Structure formats: C-alpha cells, structure tokens
C-alpha cells in the first residue's frame, strides 16, 4: 500500500505532550506525610490455634501445590493432624476472616487430608544437636505425646510412661471410634514413635516411690496424666445399678465391649463426654435423652457433635437439673429433674441455671453421668501447688516445682485435644529452656514475639529459629477482616464434610461417621484461604501503584521506591490481604 504517513517530529516539538527529560529527577516521595509499610502480619487462624500451627503458611503451600512442604510445616507443629483434623473444635475456623465472605475455610478438613496422606512423611525440621539429658513424660494422651515429640526433635531422649496397655490416653479411652478410628490414631502415634520417642505402656506412675525414681533418673518430668475421675452428682440413687459414669461406659465401649443399656438411656450433661455417650448409646440401639441444666447456647460440647447427636436421634431436654434417681426392682427407673430457668451470667460467662421448683421425671433404663472429670495425682510425693481443677502451670508448662512440668487435662488449662497438644509443646519448650539454662546457656525470653503467632500459641519452629516461611519484615499483629480488601476475592462456597446420613451412620455402628473431604476438595478448600496478612505476590499493589514506585524485588516480594512513593495509600487500600499498611513512621 502507499507509504503510511510518518509521525513528523516537525516544528521542533513532539506530537504529544511528553517531557524531554526523565521524570526520575522529580523525587515525588518528598511530598508524602504517610508511607506504606510492607510486611507480613499474622492470620487470625494462626493466632486462634491452640496447637500453634502456621495454618496460613501450609494453606499457601497447598495453593502452590507444594503438598509435601505443606505437610512438613503442619507436622512441625502438630504431631497428630489426622486426630485433630477429626476431633478438634477448630477455633481457627471461628477466627477465619473468610466467614465474612462466604464461610470459613474448612481448615479441619484440609488438616485431616494432610494427616491422612500415606506415609513417607518428610523429615521433621530441626537444628538441635543431641542432648545428654533424659526426660520422662507421664501419660500418653495428646499433651504427653506432643511434649515427647517436640523434646525428641530438640535432641532429648524421651520416655513416655503410660498406665494403659496402649498409648493415646483419652483419645483412645474416651473418644469413640466413629469419631476417631483407631487405625488413624495408631498412625499418628507411630509417627511420634518414629521420632525416637520411647513409650512404655502398662507402667502406672501412682506411688511415691515411682515418682521419686522418675525424678532421680530423669532430668525433667512432664506430668500429663489427664483427668479421668468422673465427677459425682451426689444425688440420691446415684449408686443404683444402671447409673454409671459416662466415661467408664465409653472406656468399655472403646475397649470393644457392648454393654447392655436397656431401651431408654438418659445422659446427664452438655459437654463432649455427654455427646460421646449419647451417640455411642444410640449405636447400641437405645433411645437417648440428653438432660442438661442450661440451654443449647450454653452447652460446652463442640457444635458439630451436638448437631450430629441430634441428627442421629438424640432428644434434648434443656433446663433440666437432676435431683434424684428413681428405683424399680432394684434398678434405676428414671431421673427426677427440676425445671430450671436462666439467670445472670456466672464466672464462665454463661447464664446461670436458676431453680423453678417444678419437678418432672424422665424414664430411664440406664443413666450415664457426664458432668465433668477431675484430675488426680495419686501418690505424688512432692510439694506442688494444685487446685481442685488441676495443676497451675506457667506459660511454658512449669509447675510450682522444677523439674516438674505439666500439660493437658491435669492442669487448670482448657480441656480440649488442641489445647493439650499446645500445652505439651509449651512444656517441651519450657523443659528445653530449663535444661539449657542449667548448662549455662542464656534463658531465652519465651514471651518474645518471635516464638508466637500474634498472642497465639508457641511455634516449635520459631523456638528453633527455623521458620521456613519467607516473611517480609514480620510484624506480630493480627489481621482482622477490616484490614482485608474482600473485593479482590471471588466467591467460592465452603466444602462440607461428607457425613453419613443418620440412618446409615447408626447402621454402620462404630465405623467412622464423617467421611471428611476428598483430596481434591481439600486442595480446593486451601485455595479459599485469604492468606490474611501474608504477601502471596499477587501483583495487585504493583498494578495499582499510580507512581510505578512498586517493583518486584529480587528474591521475591516487592520493593517500594520511597523516593517516588507519594504516600497515596492506594497499595494499602488495594492489597487483598492487609500486607501493606500506611504509617507515619519514617524509615
């Protein structure tokens, strides 16, 4: 074709208004009075996890399809992911910022998927040199096993003493198989043993001499004996045949027994033991009524457990306070309850049940009581501070008397599996710190931010100084939903666990009732993670910066050219995950 008309730089000027010189001479950064700070912050799930897992970190690795790395990061903090993926009350999900968008990430299901992956688990990160000290752990529940697991990787020779014939503590004795199949539990325990932990089963430590021998032979002792004594109601008829502690019933069932309960079973209590009793009794063919003295809202049991019990056919009678047990033919025949009403909140913040004087009877062939368990330390010969609710411990699990540390239900801490795993880790860190101090090393400040996610639980990786996640100028503040730019995220519905239908669940007996998520679903669930507070190099800031002052930094992340950043704040406003904040601080 004919020659195109060329741009004529005629008349000594360019055809458009373009500066002759580079605008780099104009250091517009001097205009700003606030400036962006680019740093990683703490996701609320991490702060909310009693175990101290870098949940956001492993979700991010899964998003990048780095499954082995994700599993390594998880196992670095939690020795029992297959267990917690099933039975944890997942406060991480309650804290999840995605709730404000379209439902919390199903963190428990992702954890379960990772925990269930066939073995070939990556080696546990450690930089510790072998230590000469030996440590004893008494009790092989989650607290004791977590303590042993972390101590082993810190370099110590650890021996766990377990009174029962098999390790697991309340996980094995208390939690029914339909929630936690025993092969799943065994695999998690095997992984702990593979770290070099020695578990001596059938060795009960309940005499003064046994405790004294331990204290003499080992440099430190972690007391993790749990709480196994069912609290008594102290009511007339409580000793009738047919009335028994729920925990004893569960122990029988979990050992394979199928006790005869009769047709009608009343479970007294509103906690997880009560729900376990109710669902186990349903599986034995009984009609189950749960009597609880407050209402649904005050029940301490995990929400899902209550819902499952209800779905499977348990009746709930709320505001019912047992007064006595009636007798017929020498056996229990019913529970006389007083109707309660809710009054002012008590010390736990829940509304207190107040008697109304109205009595009614619930017919029963068996009654299972589950109003809590007490911790006991039979034979403990040393002077140690304790209360009716257990042993007080400090932030690293130390009791009032070194070298005794403690964790789990035997302490005054929260009684959940996750809290026990976290307490065991804290005790391991406390023991490591204690023993290193004895050999002249400086006593590290465990409350320093470097050991924690927000004000959450301690991280064993951080204690070792081994955090594998590249963090940009980390700041230990937690990212709330208001710090996020939710407009940047596409809606994606949460995947729900594949629960068996109620009829099928009961027909399946004690086989697992919750199928969890498929691997593909769990992997997709990981992509729902908003990575609160942590830069994923999504380029949004780079795209939006009107001054082109943000560039990709060598080695990852971004660099902000402060000479040219005018402090407009667009990057901070647009960052999807709150990894940039505006500050008045000068660099």
């Amino acid at each position, binding site marked *: *074709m*004919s020659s*195109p*008309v060329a*741009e*004529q730089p*005629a*008349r000594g*000027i*360019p*055809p*458009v*208004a*373009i*500066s002759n*010189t*580079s*605008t*780099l001479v104009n250091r517009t950064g001097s205009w700003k009075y606030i400036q962006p700070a680019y740093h990683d912050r703490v996701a609320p799930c991490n702060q909310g996890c009693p175990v101290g897992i870098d949940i956001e970190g492993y979700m991010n690795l899964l998003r990048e399809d780095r499954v082995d790395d994700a599993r390594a990061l998880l196992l670095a903090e939690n020795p029992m992911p297959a267990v917690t993926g099933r039975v944890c009350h997942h406060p991480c999900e309650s804290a999840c910022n995605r709730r404000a968008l379209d439902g919390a990430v199903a963190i428990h299901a992702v954890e379960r998927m990772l925990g269930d992956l066939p073995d070939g688990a990556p080696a546990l990160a450690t930089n510790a040199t072998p230590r000469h000290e030996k440590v004893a752990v008494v009790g092989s529940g989650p607290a004791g096993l977590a303590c042993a697991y972390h101590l082993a990787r810190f370099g110590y020779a650890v021996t766990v003493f377990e009174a029962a014939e098999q390790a697991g503590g309340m996980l094995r004795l208390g939690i029914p198989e339909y929630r936690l199949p025993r092969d799943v539990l065994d695999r998690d325990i095997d992984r702990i043993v593979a770290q070099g932990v020695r578990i001596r089963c059938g060795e009960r430590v309940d005499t003064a001499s046994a405790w004294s021998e331990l204290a003499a032979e080992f440099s430190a002792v972690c007391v993790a004996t749990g709480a196994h004594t069912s609290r008594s109601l102290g009511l007339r008829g409580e000793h009738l045949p047919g009335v028994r502690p729920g925990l004893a019933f569960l122990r029988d069932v979990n050992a394979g027994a199928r006790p005869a309960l009769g047709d009608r079973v009343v479970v007294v209590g509103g906690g997880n033991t009560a729900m376990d009793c109710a669902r186990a009794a349903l599986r034995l063919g009984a009609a189950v009524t749960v009597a609880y003295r407050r209402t649904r809202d005050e029940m301490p049991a995990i929400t899902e457990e209550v819902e499952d019990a209800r779905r499977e056919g348990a009746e709930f009678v709320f505001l019912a306070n047992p007064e006595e047990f009636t007798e017929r033919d020498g056996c229990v025949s019913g529970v006389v309850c007083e109707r309660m009403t809710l009054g002012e909140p008590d010390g736990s913040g829940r509304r207190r049940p107040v008697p109304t004087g109205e009595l009614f009877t619930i017919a029963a062939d068996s009654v299972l009581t589950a109003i809590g368990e007490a911790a006991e330390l039979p034979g403990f010969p040393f002077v140690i501070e304790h209360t009716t609710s257990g042993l007080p411990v400090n932030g690293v699990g130390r009791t009032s008397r070194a070298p005794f540390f403690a964790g789990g239900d035997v302490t005054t801490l929260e009684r959940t599996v996750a809290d026990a795993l976290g307490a065991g880790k804290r005790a391991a860190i406390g023991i490591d710190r204690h023993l290193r101090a004895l050999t002249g090393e400086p006593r590290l400040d465990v409350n320093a931010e470097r050991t924690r996610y927000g004000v959450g639980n301690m991280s064993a990786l951080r204690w070792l100084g081994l955090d594998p996640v590249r963090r940009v100028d980390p700041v230990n503040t937690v990212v709330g939903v208001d710090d996020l730019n939710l407009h940047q995220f596409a809606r994606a519905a949460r995947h729900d666990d594949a629960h068996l239908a109620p009829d099928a669940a009961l027909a399946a007996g004690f086989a697992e009732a919750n199928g969890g998520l498929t691997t593909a679903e769990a992997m997709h669930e990981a992509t729902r993670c908003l990575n609160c507070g942590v830069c994923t190099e999504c380029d949004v800031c780079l795209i939006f910066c009107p001054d*082109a002052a943000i*560039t990709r930094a060598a080695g990852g992340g971004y660099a902000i050219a402060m000479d040219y950043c005018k402090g407009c704040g667009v990057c901070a406003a647009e960052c999807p995950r709150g990894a940039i904040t505006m500050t008045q601080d000068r660099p």
Partner: protein
Amino acid sequence: MKKVMIGNHAVAWGARLARVEVISAYPITPQTQIVEKLSEMCADGTLPARFIKVESEHSAMAACIGASATGARTFTASSSHGLLYMHEMLHWAAGARHPIVMADVNRALGPGWNIWTDQNDSLSQRDTGWVQLYCETNQEVLDTTVMAFKLAETLSLPVMLMLDGFYLSHTAEPVDIPDQELVDRFLPSRAAPTKLDVEDPHSFGALVRPDSYMEMRWLQQEAMREVPRLLDAIEVDWQRMFGRRYGAVESYRAEDAELLLVTSGTVTSTARSVIDARRAAGEAIGLVKVKMFRPFPTAQLRAALAGVPRVAVLDRNISPGHGGIFAEELRSALYDLPDGQRPEVHGFVLGLGGRDITPAVIDDVIARARQGAPSGREDIWVGVDP
C-alpha cells in the same frame, strides 16, 4: 467463512481479528452484546486480550487511554449517554494522540428516555478530535473495525465507527469473516512511536505553554488532513485482499442525476431500493452516502455534488436551534462552488429516536425536495406537523 451475525457481533469479530490487546468498556443498551461477546472471547481464550471492567464509561475511556499509552492496541464500545459520559476523556485521547478504536451504537439521547437509534450521540462528539465513520451494513461494520486500527495507528488518531442501534446492532445478516492470517498481514501489531516505560519514565500530558500548545493542535489537524488519502489507500489494500471497499463518500447511481439524496448509516440501504425503483421508472435520481463525517470529506462531496441541481440531505439528527448537522456541514462545504455548479441543498430532519424511515418516507422527501424552496431555508421535519 460466512456467518449470520448481528452488527454487535460483527464489531466484536472485527476487534478480535484486529487482535486487540486491551478492552475496557461499560455495557449500555444497545451496545451490550459487543461487550458480552468480547468478554466471552477473552474468557474462552479465543481473544487473548485483557478485559478491564470499570464502573463507568468515563473510566472505560480513561483505562483505554492508559492502556494505549503503554503501546497496547486498545478497543472500547459505547452508546448514547455512555458516550457522552466519556466526553472529557475523548478529548484527552485525541489530544494525546492515542489510536484507540471505539464502536458507537447510535442511540438517541434522553429525556424522554429512548433506546432507539439516531445520530445525536456521536455527532455531539464531532469536535473531540476523533475520526468518525458511519456504517451501513454488518459487513461494513466488521471491515471498518479492522481498517480503523490501521488508520488510527498510522496517524495516531482515535477512530470512532458508528452503527445504527437495533437496525444494525441487533439485526442479523450474513457476514464474511476474513481469514485471520490475511488480516494479520493487513494489520501488523502496533508499533507505538512513544509509550509509557517505567524504565525510562517521562511526564505525559503535563502543562504545555501557548506556543507549543497551538503547534500540537496544528499537528493534530495535519494528521486529520491526511485521513482521506490514507483511508483510501487502506481501502485499496482491503479490496485487494478481501474484495470489498466502501469509500469515505460513495456515489450510487448518481450519473446525470437531477436530484441526489445524501445519506448515512442504514437509511442508505432503504434509499438504494427507492433509487432503484425510480431509476427503473426512468427518473434521474441517485444518492451519495457519507461514511466519513470527521474529517469532513469536503473535496469528495464537492466532486460528487458539483453541478447537480438539487440535493436532499437526510439527517437522522438535529442541532437544536439550527438544523440537520449533515446538511449544515454540506452547505458550508459547497458554499464557494461557482454559480451553476452549486446545488440547491434541501435539508430533512427525520427518523429521530428510532422513528422508521420507510421507502414511503423517502418518497415524501423526494417529492418535497423537487417542489422545495431554494437552499438555505430551514430544514423540513418529516412526519411532524408544523
């Protein structure tokens, strides 16, 4: 390959064949299917372009300007109030010499609210510095979309192509889709003379003093002056490769005519059928189709109309207080023709807000032009009782 498609999809196909790299647009009836089709093409990967969603037409054009500044081939589409909302940015795009191509689906302006066609939306943007091309058929729409990029990028001028709302936008016709390889040969990728570069940052569009400012406007005008010659050259190439050309101005059966209709857009097709019937009846009537309105094709129109006794201009638009806009501009273009060469120009305002312009309406126009008063009197509103 021929496909039956509506005019809006012809636009989208044209943009796709031109391998646009950035699209930013906001939907508005009757343009919406253009945006929908393009977003589908972007989503399914057949058009590897970045589609930038925005909250308004003003932002759409601003995004196009930014994208074009980086050297990307950039496209948008709008209509009616959406186009008017872009007004400030239209000036900016032209002043910064961004070769953005836009399709405007001609639609009347409210109030009263009206979604049907007339040309007031685009004609009210005539002084923004955009080339304006009015299309008659869906094939012309597709072809013009591709050619517009060649024109725009060669001269660094933005180009707006128009299609009548519903008459073209929503009406399906067989359209030949040119072979992509041939189109690629016709239209290579864009080579921008200046572009944004973060490695060598410069200030664009900053303060310019009166001396330089006027020089820049002169250069813009010089580029506009080049359009007719270049459009003709582009169409020659297009015809050689694809067998079709349109012309900035097209004369149809105009030989020895005593009356020529001047039309634009789809009215042209209706008028062609009327002309054919009249010619068959022995009447010396033809038409001149004006495709290019900016720059105004003064020379071509003078050549086409000189010596014709009467001209009837069909204006589907109105400049309130004056008259039909094509008629105004045509009178001005013919003014200094010598006596005896200068036709009587009869202006007719019709078809506003989508009112149908049927063959009977055109018959009426012809009758009234033949008996009409000399040129210069106020335009006749067809179908409105005075």
